[in-house]
């Protein structure tokens, strides 16, 4: 095992909490900051990649995020995990970042091929999966920033509602309603694609008269 890999593994096996690592880094222990870096590096990179769709931009966002964390070590007081603070900074940096001109961005497609190539499937199945994936991600891109970030944080980063609420700095009920609204919008968008088998109907609109009255009267004893 090479020296950087061994060092990374040592940092990943660091059992100290984020609060302890922050306090140690504040005292000048750079290894503690490295442990924090290795703990949240990939998550922040994926978050930036999901928003910007540009791997180099995602790496710059990760660097900027940890640079700000290093600068803010003196005033950081994480009660539990440092992840909400880092993710909030990364989200703000991602949305404030201006897209580079003249760059053709398609990083999510090649990653899809890398993942599915390991499985023994026919090319037609792989093409179908890639097409479904492209449709879903395009539908997510039609959402507004507030709703899209909730979807990304939940389905890509695996955060629960409380953690998402800490990241986006709003109540849990707001996060829940945003996620529900996003799913409802996605249902509307994806109903245009028959491969999903979604019926094109309004989602739970309060319309009591939409149900069609039965043409034939039920027999006595027959369930309604």
């Amino acid at each position: 095992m090479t020296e950087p890999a061994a060092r990374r593994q040592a940092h990943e096996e660091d059992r100290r909490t984020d609060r302890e690592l922050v306090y140690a880094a504040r005292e000048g222990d750079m290894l503690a900051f490295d442990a924090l870096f290795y703990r949240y590096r990939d998550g922040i990179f994926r978050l930036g990649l999901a928003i910007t769709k540009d791997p180099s931009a995602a790496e710059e966002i990760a660097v900027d995020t940890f640079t700000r964390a290093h600068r803010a070590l003196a005033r950081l007081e994480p009660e539990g995990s440092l992840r909400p603070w880092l993710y909030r900074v990364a989200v703000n940096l991602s949305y404030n970042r201006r897209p580079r001109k003249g760059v053709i961005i398609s990083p999510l497609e090649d990653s899809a091929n890398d993942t599915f190539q390991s499985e023994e499937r026919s090319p037609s199945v792989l093409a179908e999966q890639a097409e479904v994936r492209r449709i879903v991600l395009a539908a997510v891109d039609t959402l507004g920033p507030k709703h899209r970030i909730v979807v990304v944080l939940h389905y890509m980063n695996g955060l629960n509602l409380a953690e998402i609420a800490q990241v986006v700095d709003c109540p849990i009920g707001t996060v829940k309603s945003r996620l529900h609204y996003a799913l409802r919008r996605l249902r509307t968008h994806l109903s245009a694609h028959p491969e999903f088998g979604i019926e094109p109907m309004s989602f739970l609109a309060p319309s009591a008269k939409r149900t069609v009255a039965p043409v034939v009267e039920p027999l006595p004893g027959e369930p309604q």
Partner: protein
Amino acid sequence: MACRAAEEKMSDLFTGELHPRERLELEAHADSCVRCDAALRDLMTISFALDRAYAPLRARTTLLSPARIRLAARVEPQSTVVPWWRAGFIGRLSEATMALGFAALVLGGSLDLAVKPDVVPTAAVASVAAPPSVIKGYFKTQPPVDENAYARWLRFQLRVIGADPAPAVRYPVGGQFDVAQYSSEDDMLSAGAPR
């Protein structure tokens, strides 16, 4: 359970934060309501599709090193503002000293040229002959080391004393000079190449 309440519970079902009892109530309501059942089925489809669509992205990693963070953190400019009269006092003092030194150098050179006395050699000084150099005279009487120059010198010396009636002899490059052998041009031509 009404449809409105079921709608509120559906998002909790996919985030895994629905109590088992509420989940049973939601499923019971979906069994009895066609629209809620379809909505629940569609949301499950969408949730599964989203989970599947982001699966490759969850496998992505980066090779960023913490050294890059340290580098970026150190090259950031300091945010503290220092008054200009206190910023780098030693540096500004050295700058002023160097500027004054340079100005003194330039002005001093100009003043030196201005006040320098115009010395013109007079005729009396120029008429005084320099004493003959003993060293130069000694080397003039010595034969040169080079062979060709030595031949020319020797012929000159012999001509001065009137003992060399022979004409000048040209020697090939690299040849050796022998006065006794090449006493005349005819001898040189008859003898062939020099030794």
